[in-house]
């Protein structure tokens, strides 16, 4: 049984058909990349999985449990965290307060404190700036905060939406290293990226989305050598 199973997912915005029946699986421990151009439906897919958008058709199962109709605030407690596009940290709140909001659904204070220590270890810069308001952080630091905040819920799977968007090349490499590290500690990752080259370099498998449909799928290394992918997404 795959950790996350998507079957025949259809999503509409009014009369616009944004997802036209997509199906894919994410196995425990994998990094899966969803790549595709602007407007292909990558973010819509993530939003539907988390429950920010309702699907018209299809099912979403997390660890065998049907979560198709679960609203976003319930899927967090089921072990799914979502790092949204554009970071969306709470700019007025401190770094510490942002992280603690990530643990909103958890009760045990001692365990939360332990996770906080792990997050601070992984992101020492967040520890240094824990009292600063999140709005004063740089883009890369905000991305780290958004990731740290997601880790605070101790998820079994993290969905990441364009983590490298708008970051300097130095930060981009760092962020991808961090994603690999997070994955090594046992967290499954579903990654949406426009930076297809980077995404394919760390992913196990990938799916290529085009106007609401999956047009290609396979091992990341295979896709990297696929002529079609090379032309359309790797700029070669």
């Amino acid at each position, binding site marked *: 049984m795959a950790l996350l199973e998507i079957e025949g997912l259809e999503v509409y915005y009014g009369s616009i058909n944004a997802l036209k029946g997509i199906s894919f699986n994410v196995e425990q421990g994998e990094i899966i990349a969803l790549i595709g151009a602007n407007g292909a439906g990558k973010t819509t897919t993530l939003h539907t999985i*988390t429950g*920010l958008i309702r699907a018209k058709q299809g099912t979403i199962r997390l660890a065998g449990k049907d979560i198709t109709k679960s*609203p*976003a*605030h*319930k899927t*967090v*407690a089921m072990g799914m*965290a*979502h790092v*949204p596009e554009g970071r*969306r*940290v*709470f*700019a*007025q*709140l401190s770094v510490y*307060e942002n992280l*603690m*909001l*990530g643990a*909103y*659904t958890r009760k045990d204070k001692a365990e939360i404190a332990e996770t906080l220590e792990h997050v601070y270890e992984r992101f020492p810069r967040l520890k240094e700036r824990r009292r600063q308001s999140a*709005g004063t952080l740089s883009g890369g630091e905000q991305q780290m905060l958004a990731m740290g*905040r997601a880790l605070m*819920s101790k998820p079994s799977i993290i969905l990441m939406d364009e983590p490298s968007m708008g970051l300097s090349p130095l930060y981009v490499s760092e962020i991808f290293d961090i994603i690999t590290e997070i994955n090594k500690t046992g967290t499954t990752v579903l990654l949406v990226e426009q930076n297809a080259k980077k995404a394919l370099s760390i992913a196990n498998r990938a799916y290529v989305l085009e106007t609401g449909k999956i047009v290609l799928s396979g091992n990341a290394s295979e896709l990297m050598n696929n002529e079609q992918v090379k032309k359309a997404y790797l700029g070669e």
Partner: protein
Amino acid sequence: MLSFISYLTSGLSLGSIYALIALGYTMVYGIAKMLNFAHGDIIMVGGYAAFIAMSTSWCPVWLALIISVTVCTVLGVVIEKVAYRPLRSAPPLAVLITAIGVSYLLQNIALLTQTATPKTFKSVAAGAPPFMIVYEGEPPLFFTRLSDSPYKNLTPALTVSMETFLSITVSIVIMVGLTLFINKTKAGKAMLACAEDRGAAQLMGINVNGTISLTFAIGSALAAVAAVLMCSAYPQLTPYTGSMPGIRAFVAAVFGGIGSIPGAMIGGILLGIIELLSKAYISSQISDAILFLVLIVVLIIRPTGIMGKKINEKV
């Protein structure tokens, strides 16, 4: 000088009542992103609830206050659920018009059931001695009845009534409590998160609808407390009792920077003081005109209000 202090304390007391009402406007605006124009009428309902409870022979003042707070809290939550929640993704204008509709609905229900005849509200501090009496050239007396005062042949230069004292103290306690609640508790943090980014708050596992309900509950409970304090100081109760204080408190919230909690407190208190002083020294007929003039001037100088943030909205 003493008369100035007397106007100032009355202004402070009225202002702290406005602040309690303004908090309801500003919290709902900050979190639900809507102007709840029915908020003033919740005050009126709170007034009637307390009035009806107190006119029975068995109901003590504290119980009447609890009844009023409960009625308003439930009413606020129900209004949100029935009238505003279905419009969560509707254009703001639709929500605004609905709120005005709810306001008229409440007024008309009160007209039908309570008639337009003004009721005389019995003060919660009825029979209590004044908080403070000052005679010219003498030290102030506290909690002393005029008849027991050692200077009872003289005319007091300044009297601070128990109602005034209660309004100020109760409001301060509530404001401190609310500030602690918002900044120190998990539910309060959830409110701040919803105010800033509802979608991101949901991704943290925060139930946004629940948080909005909580906001309405708190705002309406504060309105009930304001109702009892206000009707004790100004004892006439009609179905329209809530509308002017509601509008003034809305002005106070805008004045302080709508969405900002400290802003609503400062705005409310300033507004009460301005109103009382202009009634005392300029003219009681045009005190509302002066109020709105001050609002216009403040908004020209600082469009976001005194404590308003430039881009981001805070609870």
